[in-house]
């Protein structure tokens, strides 16, 4: 019995190791990874590979955020927290992929949904751990304010007002966390533009579409459609964090 468990564990670790290496290579060369995903003939297989890539990316990004979660009282064993967050983020990816697909259709490029998902995952969601790393300061402060909101038992409108007041007071007396978050957003903006340019270039190449059309479609999706999905997804994730966060974490706020 124990040898069966050992063998099962070994094969699971081997499988995960392979996926981890695959993700690492994809992050190093997203263009090659994207093209290899697009080269897969079967749509189901392409989506399966895409979701594998996303799952590993999620696990790595979870590891990046784990100290922050533990600091605010959410351990690795809190499956009732991690599972909904994974679900919301995955639905967010599907939603963003749908927005991109819809935008391409609006601009007259008839891309398949699996292609769009593969392109979006390879160029954007593969870098979720990097995004988490750059957002560390923002999340540290965000969790602090969220914990304070929970400790004070504020309702939604009061919480929104509290966030507004906190952001004004932080801007008046900026500390290194404030500057860190500003710096991160300045770094993330060009990275986002590069990812969008890669997506648009790949779509134009694959569907032999005019470059202006594919670029306009990607910009339209990024600026108009995707924010709507991101806001809904962000609120769902924030609510889950609110439910599970420990109120003691508000000590992270400046006094």
């Amino acid at each position, binding site marked *: 019995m124990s040898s069966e468990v050992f063998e099962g564990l070994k094969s699971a670790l081997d499988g995960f190791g392979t996926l981890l290496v695959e993700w690492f290579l994809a992050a190093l060369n997203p*263009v090659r990874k994207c*093209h290899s995903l*697009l080269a897969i003939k079967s749509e189901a297989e392409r989506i399966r590979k895409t979701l594998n890539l996303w799952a590993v990316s999620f696990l790595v990004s979870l590891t990046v955020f784990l100290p922050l979660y533990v600091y605010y009282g959410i351990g690795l064993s809190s499956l009732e927290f991690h599972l909904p967050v994974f679900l919301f983020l995955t639905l967010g990816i599907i939603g963003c992929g749908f927005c991109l697909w819809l935008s391409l259709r609006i601009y007259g490029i008839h891309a398949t949904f699996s292609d769009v998902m593969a392109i979006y995952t390879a160029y954007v969601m593969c870098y979720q751990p990097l995004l988490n790393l750059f957002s560390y300061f923002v999340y540290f402060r965000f969790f602090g304010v969220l914990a304070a909101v929970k400790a004070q038992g504020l309702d939604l409108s009061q919480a929104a007002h509290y966030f507004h007041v906190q952001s004004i007071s932080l*801007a008046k007396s*900026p500390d290194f966390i*404030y*500057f860190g978050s*500003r710096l991160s957003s300045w770094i993330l*903006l*060009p990275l986002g*533009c*590069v990812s*969008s*340019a*890669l997506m*648009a*270039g790949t779509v134009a*190449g*694959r569907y032999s579409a005019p*470059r*202006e059309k594919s*670029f*306009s479609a*990607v*910009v*339209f999706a*990024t*600026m*108009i459609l995707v924010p709507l999905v991101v806001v809904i997804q962000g609120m769902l994730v924030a609510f889950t964090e609110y439910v599970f966060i420990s109120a003691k974490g508000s000590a992270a706020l400046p006094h």
Partner: protein
Amino acid sequence: MKNSTNLVSLAVDSVGIFVGMLGWMFMVWGPLILALALCYLAKTPTATSNVLLIFVSMVIIPFGLLLKWLSNGIIKRGWVRIILSASVLILLGIRLGFAYSPIGIRGGQSPFERHLMGIELLSAAAVVILGLTRAARCSGE
């Protein structure tokens, strides 16, 4: 499917994407955010707030359209539109980017010095954009 991306053209395309995003920002989110801010400040829509909203929208929506047109110009590597968009970015940067940055405020600089810093940094950025575009065109030929 050919992989036509080299680093220089990718950088130029990214600038094109950025300008296009700014265009949509001015066309859609600008008026919307302004309307929300006016609602928040005035509580109920008044004649003054409506006139202000319409007046500002009449300026920023065409400006957004102009940015979108410039963005397409960068993607197509059109020289006139690239020079125009670099100039617009410089003007925008002076007004929005650096003039009110918290680093500038903390540094105790005068508004003139902060504007000057904006001009210098964005002029440098414009030179880089133009240089990259030129290089992208040369590598494509």
